[in-house]
């Protein structure tokens, strides 16, 4: 969008006046301006010409107030026309100045730094009269000639996009699915979110000196020492179930973790997706250690804390809890239940294998549907049936493309 140039308030061009007639004409010109604006706005899709007219009219309106007052003194009868002529001159002068200023600005602009791979410059070939090769025969039509060059599909080649254009998602490359690891990471997200929400509240207080907390999205990915920090941190529950860290030292220990700069790829300087940094065995050991703790009943009634935990959990595990589900999450345990996929229910046959049923002599169990072929095999008839069918060149299974008996149709009279 073009910017409007401000008019200089030159006394020679735009003399000021405070007479009553001047005020009246100014009001008339403003009314005219409003009418033009309304016309421009009323058209649903104004073309470029209309838009430019609108701008010019607007400029005229901006500059016409005092100028009309000056012209009215000399020729009170044709005040509007005279004012328009003078305003046009001013606008032309301003437009020229604007264009010059813009050109100067463009020439000073530094070249764009990019790692995109652009196609080579256009190469010319010799004209048919300038070709020195004696075997050269100019083609009479374009049919059958090889097509050379062109930019079709240039940006479809991933090598033409620089490394900085590579997509880096939020969170790990792959979702973490092991229930034990998800549980450990939920606790880690909870402890860090408690500290983060505490310090973000401190920041809002006037005169704080702790410095601005980094955004949660830029926090360092999971490392072994961070899990140790989580393990060391003691969670306490207030009477209403609100979680808090046991000591002030815990808050500051986690603050140190949160303040570490996020790791970046050295080559591309893009943020590195977080990696789990913890084994399933370690997670199981930690869960065994925490089994008597009541951290899962920690209340997430505070929406700020709940969103902090959910966002942190998304970053650490790749599981985004949708808003509709967040609404029913009341405790940390509910959040774990949301991200952990329940195990596939066992099949009945698997359950029965552990029971006394297969030990009974009069009971037979089958893991899949017993088909008619199975029934024939059980009584030893299937081989004979197959042999007889083959002898008659009939399909062994299925109808072999033969339709229903036509005679049936005739008999039914259809």
């Amino acid at each position, binding site marked *: 969008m073009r910017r409007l140039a401000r008019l200089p308030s030159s006394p020679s061009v735009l003399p000021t006046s405070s007479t009553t007639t001047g005020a009246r004409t100014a009001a008339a010109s403003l009314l005219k301006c409003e009418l033009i604006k309304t016309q421009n706005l009323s058209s649903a899709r104004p073309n470029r010409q209309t838009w430019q007219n609108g701008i010019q009219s607007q400029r005229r309106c901006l500059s016409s107030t005092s100028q009309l007052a000056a012209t009215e003194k000399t020729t009170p009868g044709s005040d509007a026309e005279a004012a328009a002529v003078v305003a046009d001159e001013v606008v032309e002068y301003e437009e020229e100045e604007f264009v010059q200023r813009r050109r100067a600005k463009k020439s000073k602009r530094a070249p764009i730094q990019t790692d995109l791979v652009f196609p080579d410059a256009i190469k010319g070939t010799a004209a048919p009269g300038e070709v020195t090769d004696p075997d050269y025969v100019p083609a009479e039509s374009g049919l059958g000639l090889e097509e050379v060059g062109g930019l079709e599909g240039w940006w479809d080649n991933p090598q033409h996009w620089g490394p900085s254009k590579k997509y880096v998602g939020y969170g790990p490359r792959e979702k973490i699915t092991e229930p034990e690891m998800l549980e450990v990471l939920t606790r880690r997200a909870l402890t860090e979110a408690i500290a983060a929400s505490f310090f973000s509240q401190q920041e809002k207080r006037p005169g704080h000196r702790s410095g601005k907390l980094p955004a949660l999205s830029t926090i360092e990915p999971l490392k072994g020492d961070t899990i140790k920090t989580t393990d060391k941190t003691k969670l306490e529950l207030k009477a209403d179930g609100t979680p808090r860290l046991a000591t002030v030292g815990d808050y500051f220990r986690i603050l140190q973790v949160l303040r570490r700069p996020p790791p970046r790829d050295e080559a591309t300087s893009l943020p590195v997706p977080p990696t789990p940094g913890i084994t399933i065995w370690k997670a199981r050991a930690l869960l065994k250690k925490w089994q008597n703790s009541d951290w899962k009943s920690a209340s997430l009634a505070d929406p700020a804390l709940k969103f902090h935990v959910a966002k942190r959990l998304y970053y650490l595990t790749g599981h985004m809890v949708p808003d509709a589900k967040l609404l029913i999450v009341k405790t940390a345990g509910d959040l774990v239940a949301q991200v952990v996929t329940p195990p596939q229910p066992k*099949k*009945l*046959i698997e*359950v*029965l294998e552990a*029971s*006394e*049923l297969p030990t*009974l*002599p*009069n*009971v*037979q*169990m*089958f*893991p*899949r*549907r*017993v088909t008619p072929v199975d029934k024939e095999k059980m009584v030893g008839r299937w081989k004979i049936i197959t042999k007889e069918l083959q002898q008659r060149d009939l399909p062994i299974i299925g109808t072999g493309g033969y339709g229903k008996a036509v005679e049936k149709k005739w008999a039914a009279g259809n």
Partner: protein
Amino acid sequence: MTVVALKQVTTGRNGVGAFILQCKKMDFHYCDWAGSSKGMNGFIKSILPKFAAAHPQIEFTVSPRPSKHPVIIGHYINGREKAICVRNLEPLQILKKVELLRDASGEKLRRVTKPVQSINESVRGVWSPYHGNGIQV
């Protein structure tokens, strides 16, 4: 080897003889996924082991039948079959159906007007038109 009725060597006289259960085999079909098989699955897990142990003369087979309602099929020594759909039934309701199949004779259902049958010859003998004094019309 299916259960076959023993060949009659001696003639039982008015109920004095060996009792043979008419139901020789029972098939239990269920679905792992469908909700209508919930009660059937519970029955197979909890009640069927005891029932099968209590009826060694009946052969039991348990097999899935995916995407179908649960069914119990009874096979009888007269060669007939009787099938009962047990969709949406509770385990104890299914037990009633299983007992019904166990106790059934395998015959077609018909009204029994003379519950007592005898194979003894009548003391009076069978009437014949060629014997006796004849009737003067």
